[in-house]
């Protein structure tokens, strides 16, 4: 167990030195998501010791903590006050940190209803490529002073700078939560998802795997009870959503030689079954697919449906992330240049030329 510590100055000093020597640096938290990004050669900027909850007043619905704070400590602090992180970040290991979760920008099953990591970030402190410790956004719900650098950093994989502190919007934990299971072929499941999405139901999860359709309802006792009656299904008493989020389900444990694709599509997209075995999450908007089809094929399929594909786990000759058109990539380079003029922060981690 580490203790609360503020090592901001030491971190800045390390960045300044790296900038002077033009040596690449890679911010690292709990090292649980090393797989998520291209492998690069860079010195570690260790944010794990920079930890501690800086501010948490439950009635403000905001928590602020240093980047190295373990996610589980944050979640424990919230649950004490019956609150939660609405975007349900995946941990992928007990040392997962807040900074890492935000830098990766990944979100759990509640995403379509409560928003993703980027939606809940209110403010950040960060060290840019000049070693300056800056503060953007804040701890209030609404703030349009200055460009939204905090959300720009979310999901930027440490390529724009080191996130040192994050303020997040939190929400009251639902009074009641339960999971229902129905038997349904994937086609039928997608059809039901489509109907339910358009209705005002207290949904917080809709997934489908192996001809089983999973429904999570969250809300007031009365609201959940009436929705349960309306939708029907067997009550499930297993941590299905945690296992889905943490990729502990058998689907994720299968043959590691076959790449795991994360395909984000408009939710009404038909089943992409011809490329491989599929788990549908996010009410249809997320398809986990195990496929050894060439990356190009998977990506073209995603694009045809208005989506994009990330090679999440496994060997990805075609690059981890969906390629950007050249005009976009040029703009990305300029933005990186604006925050990290010497290009020291995790070069190549997201795209080889960035």
């Amino acid at each position, binding site marked *: 167990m580490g203790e609360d510590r503020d090592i901001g100055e030491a971190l800045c000093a390390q960045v300044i030195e790296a900038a002077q020597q033009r040596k690449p640096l890679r911010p690292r938290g709990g090292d649980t998501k090393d797989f998520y990004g291209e492998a690069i050669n860079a010195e570690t900027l260790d944010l794990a010791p920079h930890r501690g909850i800086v501010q948490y007043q439950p009635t403000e619905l905001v928590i602020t903590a240093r980047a190295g704070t373990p996610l589980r400590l944050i979640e424990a602090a919230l649950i004490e006050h019956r609150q939660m992180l609405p975007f349900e970040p995946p941990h992928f290991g007990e040392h997962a940190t807040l900074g890492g979760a935000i830098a990766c920008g990944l979100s759990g099953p509640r995403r379509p209803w409560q928003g993703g990591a980027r939606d809940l970030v209110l403010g950040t402190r960060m060290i840019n490529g000049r070693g300056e410790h800056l503060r953007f956004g*804040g*701890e209030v719900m609404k703030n349009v*002073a200055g460009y939204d650098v905090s959300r720009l950093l979310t999901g*930027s994989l440490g390529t724009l700078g080191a996130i040192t502190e994050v303020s997040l919007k939190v929400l009251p934990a639902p009074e009641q939560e339960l999971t229902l299971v129905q038997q349904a072929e994937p086609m039928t499941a997608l059809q039901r998802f489509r109907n339910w999405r358009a209705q*005002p139901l207290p949904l917080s999860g809709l997934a489908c795997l192996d001809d089983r359709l999973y429904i999570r309802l969250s809300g007031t006792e009365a609201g959940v009870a*009436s929705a349960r009656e309306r939708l029907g299904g067997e009550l499930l008493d297993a941590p299905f959503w945690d296992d889905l989020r943490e990729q502990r389900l058998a689907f994720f444990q299968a043959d590691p030689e076959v790449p795991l694709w994360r395909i*984000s599509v408009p939710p009404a997209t038909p089943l992409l079954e011809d490329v491989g075995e599929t788990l549908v999450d996010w009410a249809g908007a997320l398809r986990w697919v195990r496929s050894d089809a060439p990356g190009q094929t998977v990506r073209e399929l995603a694009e045809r449906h*208005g989506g994009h594909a990330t090679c999440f786990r496994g060997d990805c000759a075609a690059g981890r992330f969906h390629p950007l058109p050249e005009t976009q990539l040029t703009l990305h380079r300029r933005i990186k240049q604006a925050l990290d003029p010497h290009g020291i922060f995790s070069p190549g981690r997201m795209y080889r030329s960035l």
Partner: protein
Amino acid sequence: MSATPDHYEFPPLDREALLRGLRAIVGEQNLLHSEEALRPYECDGLSAYRRLPQAVVLPATVAQVQEIMSLCHARQVPVVARGAGTGLSGGALPYGDGVLLSLARFNRILQIDRDNLTARVQPGVRNLAISEAVADLDLYYAPDPSSQIACSIGGNVAENAGGLHCLKYGLTVHNVLEVQVVTVDGELLRIGASSFDAPGYDLLAVMHGSEGMLGIVVEVLVKLLPRPEQARVLLAAFDEVVQAADAVGEIIAAGILPAGLEMMDNPAIRAAEDFVQAGYPVEAQAILLCELDGTEAEVTALADQVEAILEDCAATEVRSARDEDERARFWLGRKSAFPAVGRISPDYYCMDGTIPRSQLAHVLTRIQALSDEYGLRVVNVFHAGDGNLHPLILYDASQPGELERTEELGGKVLELCVQVGGTITGEHGVGMEKIDQMCVQFAAPELLQFHALKRAFDAHGLLNPGKAVPTLHRCAEFGAMHVHHGELAHPDIPRF
């Protein structure tokens, strides 16, 4: 031609050549350049600032916008975008030696996708028009600024507009999936996607609230939500503003997230009641409007809970709207509050600071003291649920010096918001109006970082010059540098 990292200069303008070029793109009928024709465009909703541009151009296609931007880029002529002109911070205030690009003719809803719950719209479409177009599908577009009958969706993106229901349903940035943007040099970029988490950096978030400084939004893909089965509004009256402020905290502490939680003080209640007969209790010192939505069972349970909390917090009266009609009337009073105040004073000045909820009572008391000190009446109407204040300062512009005193008082209020851990603008933007207070909220390195980001999109500073982010020179002149925990943040930064 940029001199310093945060300041730009433009070559002398050849007006005739510029007009010829614009005319060739949009035709004479869509180009305004006589003083008389330009006059209606001299200001936005903040009429204290006025300026005429060289020309107003009204394109109708994306290709025309691209050509206009290419032309202006080649000639190094500044461009200011304008939606409906309802902005309250001078964001759409024209640049004197520049072109005002109006998106008014981009007023079509291009596609409604009921399977994916999205609508693809042009930027000039009015906010309310989207919800109206999908009402028969029992869907709606959630962000509902009080100006929703007039303001454009492009302007909403540029300001990251909020509304009465953003506590639960989020701001514009949470309800837009994709925008098409014409860059300063005329390229068309797709930012975001019709799916979640588009690859690369989250440029969609950066575009939100960027006040026309980074590109011209020419198409927007918004999310639609199913209409809640039921919505109920409770109206609670209080003898003291502070009690109402405390009730806000208690509701949140009970784990309830209302769809809307708004507060008005006595002068605002009276003005609104006189104007639209909303049925408000005019003797109350403050009212809270609390909307609860969900399934019928949920709403009933929540309403009971909230009613009990309000009574515990010393509400003198709690009313529940009996029907849809009364609910609409309760909200109409709130939505009409600004124009209602406009009837009781020759002029008013609307502030937009956001503060932590726990500071509500303290800040309201301080604002009252400042109001007394300056001898200017202040009316309070605000989004209590998310701490976004809209103090309205009443003044008379025809009285010499009164506008200046009003602006000074306004500045003090914003600085107070920063002091208690809040921000100078929750939803109206910095624009021209709050540019000096940016020097209070941010330190020099942060301001320079904003300028650097701007240059990544717009190397020559042609888009909306002089707005949103102050130069360090301006901050030095204003005499305020960011003070944090009582110390000057960067005493080493030279002050010009």
